[in-house]
């Protein structure tokens, strides 16, 4: 493997890993946000019904 081969391997792995982490993190983020919204809105609905 030539010099540029090693460089591409290193840069490739780093970019790939960070992108994947970011992607998975975003997914966790969106899932949590959706769940939070759902819980908050049902809470609001429950309060509304009470009043």
């Amino acid at each position, binding site marked *: 493997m030539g010099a540029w081969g*090693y460089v591409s391997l290193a*840069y490739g792995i780093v970019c790939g*890993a960070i992108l994947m982490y970011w992607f998975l993190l975003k997914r966790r983020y969106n899932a949590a946000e959706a769940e939070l919204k759902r819980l908050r809105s049902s809470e609001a609905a429950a309060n509304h019904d009470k009043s």
Partner: protein
Amino acid sequence: MGRSTKTVKRRKGILGGLALVAVVAGLCWSLLVAPPDAYQGEVQRIMYLHLPSILTAYLSYFLVFIGSGMYLWKRDNKDDLLAHAAAELGVLFTALTIIEGSIWGKPTWGVWWTWDARLTLTAILLLIYAGYLMLRSSIDDEQRAASAAAILGILGFLDIPLIHMSVYWWRTLHQPPSILRPDKAPWENVHPAMLTALAISFVGFLLLYFYLLSLRYRVGEMRQEIKALRLERGV
């Protein structure tokens, strides 16, 4: 709802955007603008990844330390969230550091791995903070998990200088005469473009780090809120 979530989200977006710009700029400088090293050739470009990676890893561990200490002192969950997020990122960047170091090592020293001080030390750090994450996930009670992890966060960080010393002594006192001499970065006669590339890469990594940290922190924050809400409902 406190400071508008929209503002916070927009700020995160801006941070992310800046990070992207800096990272792309860093890539350009590292791969295209900076000249190859006189001794190491093109392979030296990996250092533009390796050095910032090490920096962000150590920054992470410092944040874990601060977060852990503050949590034990003030019992504010925010500090624990910070420590947890920083630990996760720390493990990521440490793993990357090791991989980069290994890939750099193959053409330079001829082997994928060598027990030189730097790589060994980084591997030990990875083990410690991976242990931190595993400790957290194996304790069911949130409070206990946070406390236990905080203790480990402090112990681990305080141990780092001792581990550093012992590993470096071990390697310098027992260095067998061989081709496996780790190359120190030659700072004399460094081409200005190389320094620029390094500087931009540092900035890029730091911005990226803080962007990811803010995301991860928020995820932790949301999860906590979700748990609290669920508990309220008896869900």
